[in-house]
């Protein structure tokens, strides 16, 4: 069951927002649509909700094709980035809106609303108006409103995008727990790869209206299908044709035949993590991720010359967007041209 989209395309004037997109979201799962702005992720989510009509393709929810069904009959809960709170209604009125439309009787509405307010920890704020709430509270109200009608699927469009970092992190964890309790099939859109990996079980990476790759966070990180996924999911340095994760960049003080000379340009301490920015002989800028202890052992200073040895690189053949899996190539296990090329970074 769950949700599936088949061959979805959508064009806005000259802009191809979706280009033959197909995804499968298992029943009860929590899936993230991840991509830069303009990648089509929000359009896809809105098409599932019925807020956007597809030019071609179909949307299937719980085994039923709903491509032609208007949003009010799709039984989806939708949460907007900017809350879309009904400003003239109290929190109670907002959360109870869908139930009132469904003509529930007053007592039942009241019971259900209070149950939900408890769930989203807004108990006691039922009589407030949205402009008397903080951003995080408003978004929890919007979530309660979407959940009140017991939707088959829950769709969240950059739900934490308008919140500050601290609240965002709290709500993330909280959404994760909520999903564990409710098990409603959930899709959320985000451009933040850390958020996607933190919250979702399955990630769908989108770019320029297409799906680049989908899978678990580990899968995408360890076996990216192409350059785009590699650079979008996690940090990456590009060295000629190959790519290296900053934590796979060993920094040593003595050169050997697999190292490259580099000058330390800047050392950034981010708590436990240390980020060292280097510039290579040909002007390429790369960075390495070290722990504080590693840095202390190396005693590096800005302006100093050090040697870089990528312990693991990846290269992708051709430009095909949904192309072959990139070969995972631990350097030590390699020989011949590839090893030389990797070493000659």
């Amino acid at each position, binding site marked *: 069951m769950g949700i599936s989209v088949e061959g979805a395309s959508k064009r806005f004037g000259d802009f191809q927002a979706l280009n033959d997109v197909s995804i499968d979201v298992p029943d009860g799962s929590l899936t993230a649509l991840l991509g830069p702005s303009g990648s089509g992720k929000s359009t896809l989510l809105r098409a599932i909700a019925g*807020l956007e009509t597809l030019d071609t393709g179909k949307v299937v929810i719980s085994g039923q094709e709903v491509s032609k069904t208007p*949003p*009010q009959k799709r039984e989806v809960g939708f949460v907007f980035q900017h809350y*879309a709170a009904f*400003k*003239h209604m109290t929190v109670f009125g907002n959360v109870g*809106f869908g139930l009132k439309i469904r003509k529930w009787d007053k007592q039942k509405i009241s019971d259900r609303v209070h149950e939900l307010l408890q769930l989203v920890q807004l108990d006691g704020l039922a009589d407030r108006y949205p402009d008397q709430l903080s951003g995080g509270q408003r978004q929890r109200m919007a979530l309660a409103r*979407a959940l*009140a009608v017991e939707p088959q699927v829950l769709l969240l469009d950059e739900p934490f995008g308008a919140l500050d970092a601290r609240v965002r992190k709290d709500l993330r964890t909280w959404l994760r727990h909520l999903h564990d309790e409710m098990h409603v099939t959930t899709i959320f859109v985000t451009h933040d790869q850390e958020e996607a990996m933190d919250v979702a079980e399955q990630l769908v990476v989108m770019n320029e209206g297409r799906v680049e790759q989908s899978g678990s966070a580990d899968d995408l990180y360890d076996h990216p299908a192409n350059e785009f996924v590699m650079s979008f999911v996690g940090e990456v340095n590009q060295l000629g044709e190959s790519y290296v994760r900053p934590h796979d960049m060993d920094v040593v003080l003595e050169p050997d035949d697999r190292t490259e000379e580099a000058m330390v340009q800047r050392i950034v301490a981010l708590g436990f993590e240390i980020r060292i920015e280097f510039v290579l002989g040909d002007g390429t800028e790369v960075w390495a991720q070290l722990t504080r202890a590693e840095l202390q052992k190396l005693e590096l200073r800005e302006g100093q010359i050090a040697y870089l040895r990528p312990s693991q690189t990846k290269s992708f053949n051709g430009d095909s967007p949904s192309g072959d899996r990139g070969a995972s190539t631990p350097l030590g296990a390699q020989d011949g041209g590839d090893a030389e090329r990797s070493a000659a970074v």
Partner: protein
Amino acid sequence: MSGTSTASRWGLRTLGLGYLLLLLLAPLVMIFYKAFEEGLAPPFEAITSADGLHALKLTLLMVVISVPLNTIFGVGCALLLVRHKWKGNGVIDAVINLPFAISPVVIGLSLYLLYGTDGWFGPALAEAGIKVLFSVPGMVLASIFVSLPFVVRETVPVLQEIGTEQEQAASTLGANAWQTFWRVTLPAIRWGVAYGVVLTTARVLGEFGAVTIVSGSITGETQTLPLFVEKQYANFNQAGAYGASILLAVLALATLLGMNLLKRKEDA
């Protein structure tokens, strides 16, 4: 705040207030003064005369018919302009402004030509026994015409400002278009609409040019309050003219005040 900016602020205030005082308030004060110059009785008698009361009733009738029609049309038209983008919108947008651009006298004349004995619709309507000119239907048409843009103009920017997300949220929560309009859209734009209604009412109350031409200004029959004022003044019954003027001003002020009270009650 520095001294110069304080001085310039006071200068601007004085200028603004002085301008308003001279142009708006002074004439109004004069009317009040003149009306009651010889006591309360003369203006009161003029207003409560049979013709005066008839003019008042007719004016209120114009309001009661034109304002709701223009409100429904105005909100619908604003929804069309803002929510349903299509090529014809530019034309509609321009046409709606016509009553602002054209002199009311010209509007009156054009209605006269259209519904007169030689006009396009005149003969056919006359045959059906409907008299448009020199009677209430023509006056209603004129009132609607001149006051048509207000609700549209006041509602369009508010609709644009609230955006579509609340409406989309309502639709995902199961509300159909009708329910979404009544429960979400209308409450969100209500003050824009209300302001449009107040302006429409004021315009209909005070309309003179277009109504004069289509009504013929027959005392006791097709005379609204503004026409009554003019007739009284022309007949050298100045107290009557001023009395009716004050009544008009009070009606318009009451509309404005009513809206403000409603708004304050809600904000409290």
